[in-house]
């Protein structure tokens, strides 16, 4: 296993993010704590937490905060998960109601320990959010469910507006970056979503050592699978025991990726250093 680094490089000037503070920030923080919810903003050590929470939005993470997979880019703890909390969907739906969100993004840890990978829980969560928040649009960022069509169909049947599944990186780097997940399996997951007529979205991180042509190939593969929305953001090492950054991609190259994506027929490409999966997520409902 990799030696843990302790020294961190200084970030380039274009990577500065807003510090977490402000009235809304405190309100969101309090609500999340009061309702015993998790967010990928905190569990993933996201650099945009300050900006998003201050704007009154958050990306909620269901099914606990312990993931059964040990991906080398991800800050979420890899551990034996706690039992499923079936009251969580209601608490989450109420939180969204209190925040008055027009759009929400839900993700989860991967639950390989559950027979259905948590698909039924996902469906219940989406339905409960819709029941209490009929005007709120929902984006779900789901695990691969081992590309099992029956399990993915459970999420599709609950009718979220967007279903996203992240490729995370290019084909060559997938075994070194993700644990258990496979490049082709993720593509299959996306193709199942797209075939059902739901907006299929995906995201990749750059700066992990990929080449430009590999990024473009991933775009081609995603389009082939029916993906309509793509996010491209700079990988940042969230903790010293995770993969180090190989390269800080310049804003100019991000812009080039955005244009290449649009040329390939994506409806939306969000590509810039601080972009994360949920960046401008509310726009993607219309893709």
């Amino acid at each position, binding site marked *: *296993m990799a030696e843990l680094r302790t020294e961190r490089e200084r970030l380039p000037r274009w990577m500065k993010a807003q510090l977490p503070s402000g009235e809304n920030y405190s309100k969101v923080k309090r609500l999340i704590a009061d309702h015993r919810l998790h967010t990928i903003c905190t569990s993933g050590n996201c650099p945009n937490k300050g900006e998003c929470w201050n704007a009154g939005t958050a990306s909620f993470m269901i099914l606990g905060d312990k993931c059964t997979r040990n991906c080398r880019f991800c800050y979420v703890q*890899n551990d034996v*998960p706690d039992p499923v909390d079936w009251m969580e969907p209601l608490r989450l739906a109420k939180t969204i109601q209190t925040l008055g969100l027009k759009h929400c993004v839900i993700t989860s840890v991967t639950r390989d*320990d559950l027979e259905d990978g948590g698909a039924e829980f996902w469906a219940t969560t989406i339905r409960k959010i819709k029941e209490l928040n009929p005007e709120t649009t929902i984006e779900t960022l789901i695990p691969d469910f081992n590309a*099992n069509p029956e399990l993915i169909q459970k999420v599709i049947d609950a009718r979220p507006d967007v279903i996203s599944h992240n490729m995370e990186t290019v084909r060559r780097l997938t*075994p070194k970056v993700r644990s*258990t997940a496979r490049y082709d399996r993720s593509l299959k997951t996306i193709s199942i979503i797209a075939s059902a007529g739901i907006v299929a979205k995906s995201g990749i991180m750059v700066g992990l050592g990929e080449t430009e042509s590999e990024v473009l190939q991933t775009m081609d593969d995603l389009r082939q699978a029916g993906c309509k929305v793509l996010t491209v953001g700079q990988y940042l090492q969230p903790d010293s025991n995770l993969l180090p950054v190989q390269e800080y991609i310049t804003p100019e190259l991000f812009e080039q990726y955005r244009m290449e994506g649009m040329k390939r027929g994506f409806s939306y490409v969000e590509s810039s250093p601080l972009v994360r999966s949920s960046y401008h997520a509310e726009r993607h409902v219309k893709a």
Partner: protein
Amino acid sequence: MKRQKHTVQQIINLTPETFIIRLDRGNFRFEPGQYVIIRIPGQNKGREYSIFSGVNDNYLDFLIREIPEGEFSRYLRHLLPGSELDIEGPKGYFVLDEKTKSGHKALFIATGTGISPFHSYARSFPDLHIKVIHGVHFDDEAYGRGSFDNGNYFLCTSRVDKGDYFGRVSYYLKASELDPKMIYYLCGNSSMIDEVTTILESKGVPAEHIRTEVFF
């Protein structure tokens, strides 16, 4: 994450490259298959290691390969009994599922020190219905072989013809018939995991039956 101090009891040299570092168990609890971060007290440097010993052992063993340029593993090898290390954990989900624990057939596939979690399983649950395929370079790298039933341990050696099979694990698996109903547990580096998963899938093993732990 909880961090606590443990004392080195012994360094057990196995080969010129590998050794076991044995620490006092203290009140440390874990599930077989989990790993920890070992840190040098007073420094933040650390490295992840799967636990090699079983839950019933009153010590904590870690099987370590000394990396030629790896300061950390070299440091550990030269520690004297009585030295202290910080242990952070346990972490990880590469634990046996209930089906395997209750006797469902499973195949453990490891390369090199990737045998650690399987060794911990075998020491903790002696009645498992399992087979182990262990890929190494030389026959003296059959770490912890004695903890597995003789008929259930299969050694693939890639550099000398002194194991049960002369060649890489992946070659052996390609040439073997595999039961898609078995549960397959894989532990090793990312290339091995990727290659073996592809072989298993090509032989009809569903993704749900493949569990992996990558040594990055």
